[in-house]
């Protein structure tokens, strides 16, 4: 039988450094959830179509289901848990609650990370900008309008 190696990696997740041994076929999403207990990013489609696993890698929004953990050696990752401060939600997270933008909640961590990526690059987006920014994220219950309202409310406050 063929043997497969383990690969040492050092990654930074939400400001904390981790040294891990991973198998080559493990995705970033798998190790975040199963090894680091960071369960904000969700596995839904697993093929990059739904955006539920969205995280920021070196500041860029990416589907963590389509990234191998072994590729992440030396990289910086932020998940929904990395927003705000302990005990205090971020402005965007609060806005989602206030606008009623969460129903079942499964898409929410990915939606918030995609929206955060938009606001980091464009603090005052138009509604069209928000719709485009969230076009890689599927929600099957709220119907998007409250999600868009939530993101726009932060944009209008100007404190993304």
């Amino acid at each position, binding site marked *: 039988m063929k043997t497969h*190696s383990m690969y040492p990696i050092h990654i930074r997740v939400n400001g904390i450094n981790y040294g891990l041994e991973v198998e*080559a*076929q493990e995705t970033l999403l798998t190790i975040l959830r199963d090894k680091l207990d960071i369960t904000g990013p969700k596995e839904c489609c697993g*093929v*990059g179509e739904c*955006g539920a696993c969205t995280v920021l890698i070196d500041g860029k929004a*990416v589907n963590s289901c389509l*990234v191998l953990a072994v590729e992440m050696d030396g990289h910086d990752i932020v998940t929904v848990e990395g927003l705000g401060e302990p005990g205090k939600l971020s402005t965007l997270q609060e806005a989602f609650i206030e606008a009623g933008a969460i129903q079942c909640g499964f898409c929410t961590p990915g939606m918030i990370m995609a929206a955060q990526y938009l606001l980091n690059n464009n603090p005052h987006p138009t509604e069209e900008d928000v719709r485009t920014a969230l076009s*890689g*994220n599927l929600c099957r219950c709220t119907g998007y309008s409250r999600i868009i309202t939530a993101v726009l409310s932060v944009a209008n406050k100007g404190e993304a």
Partner: protein
Amino acid sequence: MKPFNYFAPQDLDSCYEIVDKLGKSAYFMAGGTDLLVRIKTGRISPNEIVDIKNIKEIRSRIERNEEWIEVGALTLISEIQHNSLIEKYFPALKEAAGSVGSIQIRNRATIGGNLCNASPAADTVPALLIYNAKIKLVSTGGSRVIPLDQFLLGPGKTALQPGELLQTIILPLPTLRQAESYERLSRRRGVDLAIVNICAQVIASGKVRVAVGAAGPVAFVVEDQSGILINPDTEEEVKNEKLVELMQIASPISDIRASKEYRQAMLAVLAKRALQRASSQLNSKKEL
């Protein structure tokens, strides 16, 4: 995913060495947004993956010289979408890049990967064909430059030889007064593959070129020198007939996204839209 071994060479020489040892069974991976999907869905099950993302000679870069702009194979689709040189000289490529996958995919997928996958629906291809892109390939044997239409041979098929890598895409700077636009039809705005995609070019002499994707095994270019397509005095019906005639060369298939009849019918519609937009851009253009 089934277990596999992983290699991440930092330069071309070490990459060649690894490939030499592993043989033909190894798969190259750049962004991985297509390769990992194929592994996850069981279409391929490689024993070895060679991650080429860190190879410095094919690194992400968009550089201009007197005659052309060179784009490194590892340049992200999102970097092409937001680059000022691309926007200035190759606006339809910017548009095309902006319709690849989703924001999350564009932040990971590379232009080299988009070409080497050789999907008939690849969004960047019609624009690159219209801009007469050339492809620089490298291997232990040296390098060679070929036109993009000689690189793409069929669905998933390219002119790449075993062990050969795509290094850069060469885009000759425009020398004529011309304008281009990109049009795409899909079921969903984000992520969905194109039903058909089109890049149209209008040249001040009256010549029109239209590149068509997702309507045959490889994207293709048709040309019309008659001038009627951008003549404001030509009747719409005549223009429509001309476009339908030009699109006869297409050989679309029926799949989950659309029937071949629908694709064929939409080609002329999209081509017309793209030409109208390109024509009005040409008319409002001040320089070259």
